[in-house]
């Protein structure tokens, strides 16, 4: 089945205080589709004064929103989930157009997951409760969770509506107001969502400000009028945001980069069965979402005694990937999000070759037919060793580096020889390995005999330079809250000190 580019208005505004408003300075930027470089629409090139307007609205709304009941907030989150679900295909098409990813992914993964994350946090906030401890017969310690107030959120472009749906629901469920900046590469689905849910929340609870990082992102991250900043992106910006937060003594959560190892032990080839088939697919998942995933399994480590046989199957499967129009439901790998990413990835493939990596398949841009108009890269496998730059830096494209290991100790050593610790994959039929190896890997998420699953209710976040905080889970609620401890005495008698 084939879809076509969705319709857009000529331009959109920021969503502030419950309505769409033009940027104060009147400047817009053109957002184009990476599939064919065609214009999507114009979005506000917001400046500090637009962010201030959003912060005014959020700060004005925070008292009353923070005092709404969990029942009420959960009901509104569920309403958003229902609206996304009812318009699933429309959201899927918009994200495919804006980001370049295949329609089969937005239809079957991105948007259904969005729906689930909104529902998950609606459920969480109803099910959890504070705590109370009687410290002694006369003293009660009571913990009540309170919202922080106003939260600034800056999200990336790789899963546009899904990243919004990871960030907004826990912040709103806990009673915070939000000022969110979508990535300027993918502003469309956040805007479409605001059109559809404009009346769901009281004005000022959700505010969306579009624009560029230095002009609109920095004023959010550095404002003394936000009480917390949540960021997904890369390390230098993460470091800057933490610096700004330190001036305001604000908490932050950071989901940063990764260079995730995907480890295949020799037992995967003990039989040629459904499990082996799954493991081969697990290796090829490096190409999922064009490799534009912070947890992209971008280093394949294969035990040396199965290396040749296993990699032969992986290369064959990779070569069978269909790369055509992302609007076609047969498309498996779409377009990279922008020209600079496209060039950066090609530059990495070249440095890999220069460092002596062998190209097992792919190896450059795909310019077949209409694909020449967009930013398409052929899924690429580079064979080399872990000290090469292509093994150490996040390429953020459909490029995987493969190397071999001798035994468990070497697998762990290579897996942990990275600055990052976001994700990892372990594939084995050995019951001991499937417990012990994941525990030895310094990463926040280890997939065991699977990869790239991101269900709500499984905490997700990084070790090392991949950041901190755990999203997609009830524990995220506490990243958006204060604990109010009320220490209550039943005792009628004085201390006797004075």
């Amino acid at each position, binding site marked *: 089945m084939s879809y076509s580019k969705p319709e857009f208005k000529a331009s959109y505004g920021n969503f502030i205080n419950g309505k769409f408003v033009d940027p104060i300075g009147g400047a817009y*930027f053109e957002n184009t589709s990476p599939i064919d470089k065609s214009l999507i629409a114009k979005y506000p*090139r917001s400046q500090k004064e637009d962010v201030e307007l959003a912060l005014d609205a959020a700060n004005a709304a925070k008292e009353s929103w923070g005092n709404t009941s969990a029942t009420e907030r959960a009901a509104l989150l569920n309403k958003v989930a229902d609206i996304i679900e009812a318009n699933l295909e429309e959201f899927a098409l918009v994200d495919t157009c804006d980001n370049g990813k295949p329609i089969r992914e937005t239809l079957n993964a991105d948007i259904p997951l969005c729906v689930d994350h909104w529902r998950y946090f609606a459920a969480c906030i109803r099910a959890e409760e504070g705590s109370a401890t009687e410290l002694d017969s006369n003293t009660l310690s009571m913990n009540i969770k309170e919202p922080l107030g106003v939260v600034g959120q*800056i999200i*990336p*472009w*790789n899963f546009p509506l899904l990243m919004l749906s990871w960030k907004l629901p826990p912040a709103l469920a806990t009673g915070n107001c939000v000022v969110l900046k979508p*990535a*300027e*590469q993918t502003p469309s689905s956040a805007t479409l969502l605001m059109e559809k849910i404009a009346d769901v929340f009281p004005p000022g609870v959700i505010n969306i400000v579009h624009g*560029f*990082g*230095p*002009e609109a*992102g*920095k004023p959010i*991250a550095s404002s003394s009028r936000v009480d917390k900043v949540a960021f*997904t*992106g*890369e*390390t*230098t*910006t993460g*470091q*800057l945001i933490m*610096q700004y937060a330190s001036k305001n003594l604000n908490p932050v959560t950071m989901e*940063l*980069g*990764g*260079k995730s190892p995907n480890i295949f032990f020799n037992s995967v080839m003990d039989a040629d069965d459904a499990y082996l088939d799954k493991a081969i697919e697990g290796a090829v998942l490096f190409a999922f979402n064009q490799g*534009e995933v*912070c947890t992209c399994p971008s280093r394949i480590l294969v035990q040396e005694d199965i290396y040749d046989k296993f990699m032969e199957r992986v290369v064959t499967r990779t070569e069978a990937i269909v790369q055509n129009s992302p609007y076609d439901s047969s498309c498996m790998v779409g377009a990279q999000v*922008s*020209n*600079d*990413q496209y*060039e*950066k990835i090609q*530059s*990495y493939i070249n*440095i890999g070759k*220069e*460092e002596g990596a062998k190209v097992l398949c792919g190896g450059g841009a795909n310019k077949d037919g209409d694909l020449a108009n967009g930013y398409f890269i052929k899924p690429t496998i580079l064979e080399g060793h872990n*000290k090469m*730059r292509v093994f*150490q*830096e*996040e*390429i*953020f494209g459909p490029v995987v580096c493969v190397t071999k290991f001798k035994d468990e100790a070497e697998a762990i050593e290579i897996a942990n020889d990275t*600055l*990052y610790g976001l994700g990892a994959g372990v594939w084995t039929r050995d019951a001991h390995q499937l417990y012990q190896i994941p525990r030895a890997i310094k990463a926040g998420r280890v997939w065991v005999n699977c990869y790239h699953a991101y269900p709500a209710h499984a905490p997700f976040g990084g070790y090392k*330079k991949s950041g901190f905080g755990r999203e997609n889970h009830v524990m995220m609620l506490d990243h958006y809250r204060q604990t109010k401890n009320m220490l209550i005495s039943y005792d009628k008698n004085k201390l006797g000190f004075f």
Partner: protein
Amino acid sequence: MERIAITAEAAEIVKQLKEKHGALIFHQSGGCCDGSSPMIFEKEDMYLDESDVFLGTLEGVNFYMNKDQFEYWKHTHLTVGITEGRGASFSLEIPLGLRFIIHSRLLTPEEETFFSKK
């Protein structure tokens, strides 16, 4: 002998940005969405210390990289270029619709010897 260089086109953009923003620094970012790219900031914006390695000066702008990252990059020569693009980071060229980009090559044996003595 230098570890880093800049293309004429990129140097022109650095000049423009200096006129607009004053003193600047480059910092090479690590991974994720907009990462693995050189970023340019106002000089006072980023706190630098011994965890950052100084690689050289381009158009009067000092270029730094995190020490841990440098361990993996130290065998490469870097050239800062510029290309059309978009980015969600706070790098100052982004509003121009441009991105700085790194072109790398391995150090020659002569360069490798030279820098290992430094």
